[in-house]
Each structure stands twice: as structure tokens, then as C-alpha cells.
């Protein structure tokens, strides 16, 4: 004869009491685990640093900035690339490649913006023209006042 679970033959009241206890035990265990793990997960997430509320950046003297060159500046926490074109105009773009986050650089021979990490190319308007970058670079505003260059966030972008 097969061995039977003694509970199967026990009165129905007992079985349901048993499964009720199982559920209770399971739920307690679950809650207990949750109360252990939750603080750990919260601990792992770094606290939000207040965004350095930069709205404008003093980028130095305009006449000292050579044509067909570029500089990387820190705008809050993010890098921005400020290019002086051959013709003398300025252009500022986010320097963070839209592909995988590398910092881009200016190529003076082709007058383009290049990302060395995976060979991504952008034109001076920030449009992604070849390679893996999926999106254009975010533009910033540049104004020159009394020979001083200011970079500001482009609110329209």
C-alpha cells in the first residue's frame, strides 16, 4: 500500500488550518526578507546631489580663442565643447556623445566633431552624421559681450 500523507485523512478543518499557517509563515518570511533587502537597495542608490544650478558659464576672452579650435568646459556637472569655427563664430554643444557617453573632440582638419570611442561623427550643428551615435548633441547658446564669451543653456532645446 502506498504511504499517504496523514494530513490527507485528517478532518478538513485541520487541513485548512495547516495551509493557513503555511500562508502566514510564508508571508512573514517574505515581509522579513523584504524588510532586510529594502534598506540595502535604498542604500545602494546614491543620494541625489543638488544639481549645481549653473545657468551661464564664463568661457574667457573671445580674442584669445584661436579660430578652428575648441575647448571642453565644465557646465555644472557635464562637459560642454565650445568651438570657434574658421569663420570666427562660436558654437557650443554638449560634449557627451549620445552613443555611450564618451567625451567628444573637435577635428580641425575636417571641421567636425568626433568621438574617438566608436568613431562617431557630428557636424558643427551637432547633427550625428556617421557612426553609431543615435541622436544629435544638445546645443548651448553662446553670446559674446565686450569680448567675453558666455555659454548658457539653450532653453528651446
Amino acid at each position, binding site marked *: 500500500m502506498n504511504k499517504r500523507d496523514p494530513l490527507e485523512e485528517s478532518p478538513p478543518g485541520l487541513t485548512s488550518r495547516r495551509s493557513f499557517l503555511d500562508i502566514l509563515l510564508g508571508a512573514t518570511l517574505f515581509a522579513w526578507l523584504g524588510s532586510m533587502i529594502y534598506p540595502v537597495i535604498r542604500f*545602494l542608490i546614491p543620494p541625489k546631489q543638488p544639481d549645481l544650478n549653473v545657468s551661464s558659464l564664463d568661457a574667457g576672452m573671445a580674442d584669445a580663442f584661436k579660430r578652428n579650435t575648441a575647448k*571642453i*568646459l*565644465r557646465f555644472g*556637472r557635464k562637459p560642454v565643447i565650445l568651438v570657434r569655427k574658421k569663420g570666427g563664430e562660436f558654437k557650443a554643444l554638449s560634449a557627451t556623445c549620445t552613443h*555611450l557617453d564618451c*567625451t567628444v573632440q573637435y577635428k580641425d582638419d575636417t571641421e567636425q566633431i568626433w568621438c574617438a570611442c566608436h568613431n562617431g561623427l557630428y557636424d558643427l550643428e551637432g547633427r550625428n552624421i556617421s557612426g*553609431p551615435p*543615435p541622436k544629435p548633441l544638445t546645443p548651448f547658446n553662446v553670446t559674446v559681450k565686450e569680448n567675453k564669451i558666455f555659454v548658457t543653456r539653450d532653453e528651446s532645446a
Partner: protein
Amino acid sequence: MSVTSWLQERFDIAAVQKFAAKKQVPVFFGTVWYYLGGVSLFLFILQVLTGILLSLYYQPGAATAYESVKFIVSKVEFGWLMREIHSWSANLFVFFIFLHMFTVFFSKAYRKPRELTWVSGMILLALAMVFGFSGYLLPWNELAYFATKVGTDIAGAVPFIGSFLTQVLRAGDEVSGATLSRFYSIHTAILPLVFIVFLGIHLIMIQVQGMSVPEAQENVPPEKKKTMPFFPNFVVRDLMLWLIMLNVIALLAVFFPWEIGLKADPLTSAPAGIRPEWYFMFMFQTLKLLPAHLWFLEGEVFGILMFGVGGIIWLLVPFLEKPKYTKLWTSVGVGIVLYMIVLTAWGYLV
């Protein structure tokens, strides 16, 4: 009373001795493959020893990490040697694990009853790669800084938990000194613990089940089968090989030192020639070649999904492979090896 009998009265060590004395290693054309796991083990031991030594001087932190590595290699006596051995054995460690994994794959040694040994081995391989990835950042140089930016950004493409992962790995929105602290802890506390657990499981399973023998050898008539005792014959050969490895590493350390490079600076452009450690190169190169958009996905997401799914299939090979399709699996394996070699070479040449 001898030590052995003292112990025997308390623990049944005679059983262990008997087991060790009885254990035989098959001798045939493939015996050399049996040494690969042992060599990997030795390299891991070297990692632990040199890693502990380096940790005596290394200081994590954006302002100190690079300087302390410089200090180790230029001021501390034999500091250069410890760092070189650590780097070289780390690279060889990953290399030998890969080699070990592929020989196991092609000799079908993962088949029943060794499915779980394969799975534990694959976990060790993955851990070794995370070891490499986290250790790469520790000198806080330019190459590693950008490789880490890219690597942690890739983690962001994991469905659902991606941005959480990137945040947790970077300890913020950007790779910074906080990231370095985290990687240091991962590299020197979390990974060693987890690795040793899986290593223990892996080794116990191998001892319990014995060496796998390929089918061709299995069918050799018994009178022609040769074996050698595991102890001492095989063990002595193992140790000899370890000694040779140590000498090779010392030579490599002296003649082909690893550069420290320039200190990481978040305000510089990524320099040309950015690359991860060589064992990530085939994936890195793939990402470089994928177009910006593929199908309805961004190129990078497509690449990551492909490697993710591929990795999971590879992990489950022992459960998926059926003897009927042996040839097919072997050619898939050959294809993968070729793909990895070609893309790695490509990554370095162009």
C-alpha cells in the same frame, strides 16, 4: 602517536587518503586539456596574493588612486613587480579560463552528469570578467576612465533595471571618485568572496565526478586505455606547470610592462585608441560596427541584447545540446571562436 593517527581518531581521514590514492587520470591525446583548469586556479591564487600586497599601498579616490599606483611602481621596493604580476596574471587568468571553457565545450565534457560543473564554470568566467572590468578602473587613468564610462553606460541598456544599474555602478550620474570607491569594494571584497564560493563548488564537483573522457577515448578497448595516478603523478605535473607559468609571468613582467598612462581627467576628450581590456574587445568592436539604428532598436541596444541572449544560451548549453545535433553545435562553437578572434584582431588593427 603520529599526527595522522591523532587526526584519524577524530576525523575519517583514511577515507580521503583512499580516495586520493584511487583517483586516476586518463592518459590520451587530450590529457593536456586537463591542465588548463589547474593553471587558471594557480593564476587566481597569484591574483589573491599580489592583490593583497597591492592593497597595502593602494588608495582609492579620484585624487589618490593614480598617485598611489605611481607610488607603488616607482617608490615601493618591488612594487613594480607586484603590480606587473597582478596585471599579467589577471590577463592570463581570463585567457586560460576561456581556453579551458572552449576545450570543455569542444570535447563535450559538459554532458550528463557534468551540467552543473559547466554552469559553475561559466559563472566563474563571468565573475573573472567583472574582476577584470572593475580592476581596470582602479589606476584611474584616461583609458580606463572612458572604458568605464562606456561599460557602465552599456549596463543602462538592460531592460527595466538599466538606469538603476548604471546609477548603482557609477554611484551617481557620472563616473567619478565615488565610482572608484565602489569598484574598489567590488573588486576586493565582494568578488573574491563570491568567486571563492563558486570555485569551491566547481572543484568539489570535479573531484566527486572525476575527469570527463571524450567519446572517442571511451570506446578504446580497456586493455589499451592508459591512466596515471592523480596523486602524486598528475599533481606533480600540475605543480611543475605552475612553476613554469610563474617564470613566464616574471619574464613578461620585466620585458612587457603594462603602462600606467595619463591620469583620468573628466574635462578632456576621449583620446583616440580608447579600448577596453582585450577580452571585451570583440564586443566593443561589434558596438563600433553596428549602425545607429537597427530594425526598431538603437544599435547598441541590439548589440547588448544579442550578447546577453548569446551568453545565456551558452550558459545553458549542457541542457540544450542534443547528441543528434552535435555537429551543428560544434560548428556554432567554431563560428563563435572565429568571430571572437577576427573582431578582436580587427579592433586592435584599425
